[in-house]
């Protein structure tokens, strides 16, 4: 919402406050200030096009000589977006400067020519001034004039109003809150009195409200004999400053009063409302407005030239033949006022915010009116706003009031709820020490009614425009914000610590990430969705994938059931910038759908890219071993396919290791091998052992013996080592020392170190030798392996 300070000044005097301070105060206590727009910082001038030439080397570009005041001539290159001709006077940004949109304008070369500025379109001015998209000035203007100042822009505050504060969506409403904040006097809006001359009343308008529940109030009034022209300068300037495009004086007046008071208003062309047929088939002369809900399949062609299919049950303003307007959102093209309109019906109504919000969402249509209706409108202002706009129109367009004021008030009157305020609770919640006098003063400034008062409690009624104040806590916020959030001194909490959550998964996850990182792996984070084409890569069936109802696009429409597709994306991002090993991992949630239930699990996945396949296996295995080691947890690798193995813990599969098919690793110039692993961390965390108990340190020394075996056939080293440990309980550990393979197809020479230890005595040489012999024989006889 744009607040021109000049307009604000009509209701509250803040002239003495420097604009930066004003903006800061507002942002602390009222709402966020997105921007202070100050026209003088933008060097945008009225310039005249003196000549235009097409640039031969370019399809779209032209070069113009433009006079920008003081006989200064600039070369400016511009495209074909707007029809510009010699003699046109348009806004010209003179380099170097910036535009209100933040765009920087510098001198620059385009198609071999130097451009010393830019012709500025409305959108780049941050305004909405002309129909063509670029404003044109008349010959009477002075060349070189600052365009924004010429358009009447003094300083403007651009505010972001939170959805609870509908009452701030008007200049008056905002001024009201600001005056309460500063304790300044508010120049109150006074409802004008209108002249009703009975001889002008035509008695040919009827209004019927068919739906009580969705219309809180409907007031209307007819004016005849107007001449709809262009609005006066002062009004145009204020509208433009507030971000609205002047259209014609009737429409401008309705917009003006909406901006001023916050009540959306609409004007219908009376003559475009159908006459009711009388009994004898002749026209009755009476035109009727009906407020009703839409039936199935109704449409409207709106003022914005779009045709909307209306959801059933939306509120519309209609006559008995056609829809005149979609309530609270937009008028129909056919019922709108034009320059030829002489009789109008003005509408000032309050519609049910939920209905408006539902229709707005269904149509994807948000208007200045709908935003205000959704945030609720002061029910006390409807008729005042109607009188205000009628008065303005008669002042500008002439005409006479030709109907009574219709005021249909639905009597499901909100029982005014009083709020019991307790000073003790305020101080207990805020952690400060307010006195009842300070509270009273603040509430008084905010126009709360205090109906009963004791030493420590107040009975209060909030003002009619504050729909957001329903509870005592809402009142607390009012008091603290006006007093100043930053006047509350910070403290640190006392009180007991909670002992109820003892969840160390976060730190375990961190430890695992640290292990991977220490081993040279880089952690990645990817989006939680992928495209249907990536389902195949995940090796999890399409039925087990969760689909999003409203994805941003098809390529992000499936929730990930595997971290692999994301990892591959990260891999490809780096594949040719890293020429040696590449190790990436990600820890994140995956989503699996079974029987319409979604299960969410925490996984770690990693992919390693290494030239030599054995090295690749070792790399991956090291990480897995270290992760399980963190939990003192035993696991088994069970290879089922030639390129894939399962990781089992307590005979449950909790992960996999697989060699990725080269078709998944795209455009790797080095043709490296890729191995992928994944472990279900939720499972791993659940299987955590209880606290480790101390195990005695063996008092007798261990003895190592190395053996090198030649593996020339299909044999799993993992299983071999497992078997080995079962031969004798004095074999404490078997460690892999080295794998040597001259060439891919050569046999592997594998050196194992066997550690013998007896917990009851020192092993003799003979005992070790006998055991080691058994081991060697086991290799030879059971596995038919050669020993080196």
């Amino acid at each position, binding site marked *: 919402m744009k607040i021109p300070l000049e307009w604000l000044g009509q209701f509250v005097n803040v002239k003495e406050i420097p604009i930066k301070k004003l903006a800061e105060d507002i942002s602390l206590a009222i709402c966020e200030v997105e921007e202070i727009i100050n026209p003088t910082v933008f060097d945008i001038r009225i310039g005249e096009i003196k000549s235009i030439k097409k640039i031969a080397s370019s399809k779209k570009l032209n070069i113009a000589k433009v006079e920008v005041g003081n006989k200064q001539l600039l070369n400016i290159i511009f495209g074909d977006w707007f029809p510009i001709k010699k003699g046109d006077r348009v806004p010209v940004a003179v380099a170097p400067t910036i535009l209100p949109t933040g765009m920087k304008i510098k001198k620059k070369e385009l198609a071999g020519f130097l451009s010393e500025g830019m012709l500025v379109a409305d959108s780049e001015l941050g305004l909405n001034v002309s129909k063509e998209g670029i404003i044109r000035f008349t010959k009477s203007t002075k060349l070189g004039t600052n365009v924004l100042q010429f358009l009447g822009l003094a300083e403007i505050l651009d505010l972001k109003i939170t959805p609870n504060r509908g009452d701030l969506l008007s200049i008056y409403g905002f001024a009201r809150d600001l005056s309460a904040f500063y304790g300044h006097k508010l120049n109150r809006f006074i409802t004008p009195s209108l002249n009703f001359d009975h001889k002008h009343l035509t008695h040919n308008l009827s209004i019927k409200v068919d739906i009580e529940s969705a219309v809180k109030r409907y007031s209307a009034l007819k004016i005849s004999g107007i001449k709809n022209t262009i609005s006066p300068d002062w009004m145009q300037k204020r509208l433009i400053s507030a971000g609205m495009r002047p259209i014609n004086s009737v429409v401008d007046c309705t917009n003006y009063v909406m901006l001023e008071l916050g009540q959306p208003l609409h004007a219908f062309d009376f003559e475009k409302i159908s006459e009711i047929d009388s009994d004898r088939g002749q026209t009755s002369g009476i035109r009727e407005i009906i407020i009703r809900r839409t039936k199935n399949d109704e449409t409207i062609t709106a003022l914005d030239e779009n045709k909307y299919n209306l959801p059933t049950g939306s509120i519309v303003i209609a006559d008995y033949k056609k829809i005149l307007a979609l309530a609270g959102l937009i008028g129909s093209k056919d019922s709108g006022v034009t320059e030829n309109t002489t009789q109008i019906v003005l509408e000032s109504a309050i519609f049910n915010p939920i209905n408006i919000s539902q229709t707005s969402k269904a149509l994807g249509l948000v208007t200045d009116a709908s935003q205000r209706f959704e945030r609720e409108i002061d029910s006390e202002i409807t008729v005042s706003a109607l009188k205000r706009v009628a008065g303005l129109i008669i002042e500008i367009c002439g005409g006479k009031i030709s109907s009574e004021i219709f005021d249909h008030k639905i009597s499901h009157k909100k029982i005014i709820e009083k709020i019991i305020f307790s000073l003790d609770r305020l101080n207990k919640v805020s952690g400060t020490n307010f006195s009842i006098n300070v509270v009273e003063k603040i509430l008084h400034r905010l126009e709360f009614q205090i109906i009963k008062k004791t030493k420590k409690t107040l009975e209060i009624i909030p003002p009619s425009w504050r729909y957001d104040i329903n509870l005592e806590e809402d009142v607390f916020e009012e008091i603290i914000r006006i007093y100043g959030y930053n006047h509350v001194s910070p403290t640190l909490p006392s009180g007991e610590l*909670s002992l*109820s959550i003892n969840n160390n998964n*976060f730190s375990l996850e961190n430890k695992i990430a640290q292990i991977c990182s220490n081993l040279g792996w880089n952690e990645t984070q990817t989006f939680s969705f992928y495209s249907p084409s990536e389902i195949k890569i995940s090796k999890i069936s399409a039925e087990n994938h969760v689909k*999003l109802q*409203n994805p941003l696009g098809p390529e992000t429409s499936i929730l990930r059931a595997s971290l692999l597709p994301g990892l591959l994306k990260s891999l490809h991002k780096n594949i040719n910038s890293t020429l040696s090993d590449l190790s990436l991992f990600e820890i*994140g949630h995956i989503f699996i759908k079974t029987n319409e239930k979604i299960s969410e699990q925490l996984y770690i996945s990693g992919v390693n890219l290494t030239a030599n396949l054995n090295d690749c296996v070792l790399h991956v295995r090291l990480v897995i071993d270290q992760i399980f080691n963190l939990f003192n947890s035993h696991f088994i690798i069970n290879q089922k396919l030639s390129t894939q193995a399962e990781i089992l813990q307590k005979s449950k599969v909790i992960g996999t290791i697989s060699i990725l098919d080269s078709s998944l690793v795209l455009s790797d110039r080095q043709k490296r091998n890729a191995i992928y692993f994944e472990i279900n961390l939720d499972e791993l965390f659940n299987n955590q052992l209880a606290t480790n108990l101390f195990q005695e340190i063996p008092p007798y020394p261990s003895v190592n013996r190395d053996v090198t075996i030649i593996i020339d056939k299909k044999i799993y080293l993992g299983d071999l080592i497992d078997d080995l440990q079962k031969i004798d309980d004095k074999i404490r550990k078997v460690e892999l020392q080295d794998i040597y393979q001259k060439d891919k197809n050569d046999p592997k020479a594998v050196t194992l170190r066997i550690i013998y230890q007896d917990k009851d005595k020192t092993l003799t040489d003979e005992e070790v030798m006998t055991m080691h012999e058994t081991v060697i024989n086991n290799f030879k006889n059971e596995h038919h392996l050669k020993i080196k």
Partner: protein
Amino acid sequence: MKQLLDQIKQIKQKVKDDLKSKLSADEIKNKYLSRKGKLNNILKNLKNFSADEKKIIGQEANNLKQFIQQEIRKLENKNLSNVNFHDLTIPSTETFFGSIHPIRSMQTELVNIFSKIGFDIASGPEVETDWYNFEALNIGKNHPARADQDSFYIDETHLLRTQTSSVQLRVLENIKPPIRIIAPGRIFRRDSVDATHTPTFHQIEGIIVDENITFADLKGILTYAARQIFSSQTQTRFRISYFPFVEPGAEMDVSCPFCVNINTHCSVCKNSKWIEILGCGVVHPKVLKNAHIDPKKYQGIAFGMGIERPFMIKHQIPSIKLFYENDLIFLSQFK
């Protein structure tokens, strides 16, 4: 100032020339680094410059000093005897080092800060029900606040959570006050990718429920956290804001850690001196009621902050996209 910087450059060139003409280590030391050496001559003029200029010149002079010292060391090394020679300068052959993703680093940093003042860690699912993500937090079906958080829906009742506040109710329902928890996690909003938006990002939520926890405590805790994250000099300010699940509601700004000099343009805070960092407030009584906690007996404070944003501010990262593109050149800058 430029003159002085040029002189520094010239000295560097002279040192190189002297090295070529085989001056000894002592000679170079004398010529450049002694009390009456060339470098000191330059530094003598330093007092005539502004603080900012001193900083720049000082930096350059220091670089030069280090360069000269290293060259002197190399010369001296050459004179070591060849007997019993061992090379201790051999680098590691590791071609790259691993790294922790910046999001995790920031998450851990924040968790550690809040752990120090007694917060436990809680978590919740990323696929959430409408109840926990919206309704229970006082955001009804037609609440305008829903429009600000465009969500990804899975079906009528399930969506990808739009805020870690969804963990609030899950915790409040399950444990009895006093409650003091934080919940870091991934959240989702239906935003197209640009420099400040990604459809996936991260937040950390905090909530305390106790008999006497106050708005003043909220300010104290968050000011403490801000100083831990940025610096002990960091100032905070609290502004009015609106989140349906807190009342009073606020946003916290921290003083811009980068614009020390008032006269230069600051690209981080756009010269406002403040950076918006989080939303917070006193837990709305409806939220407590929804969790069957008596709002007359207990009160709560809560806050939620982004993970990527403070990291971006601290490290001056220009685009949030970088976090999810996983370029190793980006990732390996942070450990």
